[in-house]
């Protein structure tokens, strides 16, 4: 294992210390239990958004804490869900009296830990609503699994619901918008290489130099198929087809498109992916209203990409365009 770290067990804590030093204008960092709050939390009278999950997906979620997006993020150990006490403390700290929305990716550990935290907060009289994201079309047989995994759409949910909360909407309405984003978003990813969890010390899975995994999850969970590497256009065709057929996205639909890097893919390649995705959408009459290209929900140093399409209407687009000021996403200010 070759990594720019000190000790594997200190990775999360030292990352948080770095964030605290880098962004004191945006966030406050609490160590033990670990959580990141927006600097002006709690914002009185505003619905607060709390998300979290295993570390290793940066900038998700800590990079999205700030005005117009999350009020708190709870990082667990790398690829391990945060614990209820952590989520509960963060929920209490950001509650501005208008209730708290928990945004949870559909992984059994995350779902259960957030559920326990919500019960604890509700016992204290804090109103909590939960939205679970599950946009990964790679999981086909969802009847017999935990269900689809929550991946790229989580970024869209955090941004759009964050703007809705900032606009002063009540908890029920913010939760409804968050659910609408999840229901209208679909994603699929692929990997060229594996990734190494620091405490594990060796790659999560083995993959040949000439192979790729189509439908990879953000923790390196297996996807639909393992196959020989192909040209970028053919890979994008496979991902886009699965995504577009699933919702399905139709001619005349307006979308926000994200081409996301898994952590080890250079931007030059992501633009090659976007080029093909834009061609496909154009050919199908799907209008890309906005796009996001870069590393937004990663899997440590894995090379690969994921594509997310979100069908939008004027309201969702308005909240997408609303000002946001976080470490990883910033516009309109």
């Amino acid at each position, binding site marked *: 294992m070759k990594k720019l770290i000190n000790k594997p067990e200190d990775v999360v804590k030292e990352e948080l210390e770095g964030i605290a030093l880098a962004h004191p204008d945006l966030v406050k960092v609490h160590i033990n239990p670990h959580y990141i709050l927006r600097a002006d939390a709690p914002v009185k009278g505003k619905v607060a958004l709390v998300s979290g999950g295993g570390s290793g997906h940066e900038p998700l979620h800590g990079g999205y804490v700030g005005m117009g997006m999350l009020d708190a993020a709870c990082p667990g150990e790398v690829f391990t869900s945060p614990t209820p006490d952590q989520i509960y403390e963060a929920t209490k700290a950001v509650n501005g009296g208008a209730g708290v929305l928990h945004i949870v990716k559909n992984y059994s550990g995350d779902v259960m830990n957030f*559920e326990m935290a919500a019960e604890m907060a509700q016992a204290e009289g804090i109103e909590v609503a939960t939205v679970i994201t599950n946009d990964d079309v790679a*999981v086909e047989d969802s009847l017999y699994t935990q269900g689809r995994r929550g991946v790229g759409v989580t970024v869209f949910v955090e941004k759009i619901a964050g703007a809705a909360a900032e606009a002063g909407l009540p908890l029920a309405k913010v939760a409804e918008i968050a659910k609408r984003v999840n229901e209208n978003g679909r994603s699929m990813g692929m990997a060229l290489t594996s990734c190494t969890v620091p405490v594990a010390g060796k790659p999560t899975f083995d993959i040949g130099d000439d192979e790729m995994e189509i439908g990879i999850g953000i923790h390196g969970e297996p996807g639909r198929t393992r196959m020989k590497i192909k040209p970028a256009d053919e890979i994008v065709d496979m991902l886009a087809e699965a995504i577009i057929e699933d919702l399905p996205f139709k001619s005349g639909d307006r979308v926000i498109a994200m081409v996301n890097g898994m952590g080890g893919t250079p931007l030059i390649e992501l633009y090659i992916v976007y080029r093909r995705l834009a061609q496909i959408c154009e050919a199908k009459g799907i209008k890309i209203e906005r796009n996001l290209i870069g590393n937004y929900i990663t899997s440590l140093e894995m090379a690969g990409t994921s594509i997310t399409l979100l069908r939008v209407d004027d309201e969702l687009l308005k909240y997408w365009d609303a000002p946001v000021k976080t470490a990883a996403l910033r516009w309109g200010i």
Partner: protein
Amino acid sequence: MVTKDDVLKWLKHYADVIAEQKEYLTQLDAAIGDADHGINMDRGFTAVMAQLPSVEDKDIGTILKKVGMVLVSTVGGAGGPLYGTLFMRMGMAVGNKDALTPEDVLKMFEAALEGVKQRGKAELGDKTMVDALTPAVEAMRQALAEGADLATALDKAVAAAEEGMKATIPLVARKGRASYLGERSAGHQDPGATSTYLLFKSAAEVWNHADA
């Protein structure tokens, strides 16, 4: 009767067993999950052992609830909420007692099963810890109903848990991260069912004298 001292001995013994089986549990998890079950459980029970002295003079319910809270805040993943709920529900079921009759022990494990099923939304046959917990509780209930003493009922529970654990091998996972493997999860023993079997085995080993 199972005294408070017996409960403390059980917890300490289980913590030792988890430490010994850490690698084994992690290996089982590596095959179908994310290779952290043994590491996470050991971290949790090491924390439990560190915090146990602060509640050792309290009643059994308080002790078990404390164990649950510590596990919830230290284990993480899916194991934290599941084992945390298991111990918290056991604590709630026994309340402020200082000694447990065989019927109390049965009620305690029944509450554990109910809590785990609720939390994990898993049913028998989903390839989870429920597959060891369900037959263990059922075997204990039946043995006690037939007039067996606690030691005998526990032995039957251990045998049933072991059978349930082994029965997870051919199953396709329907819950948790293993479920994403689909058919590829078959052929591997479930790590959660294994740590649950060890929980009953530890109880039988330290409570074998405690027949009432």
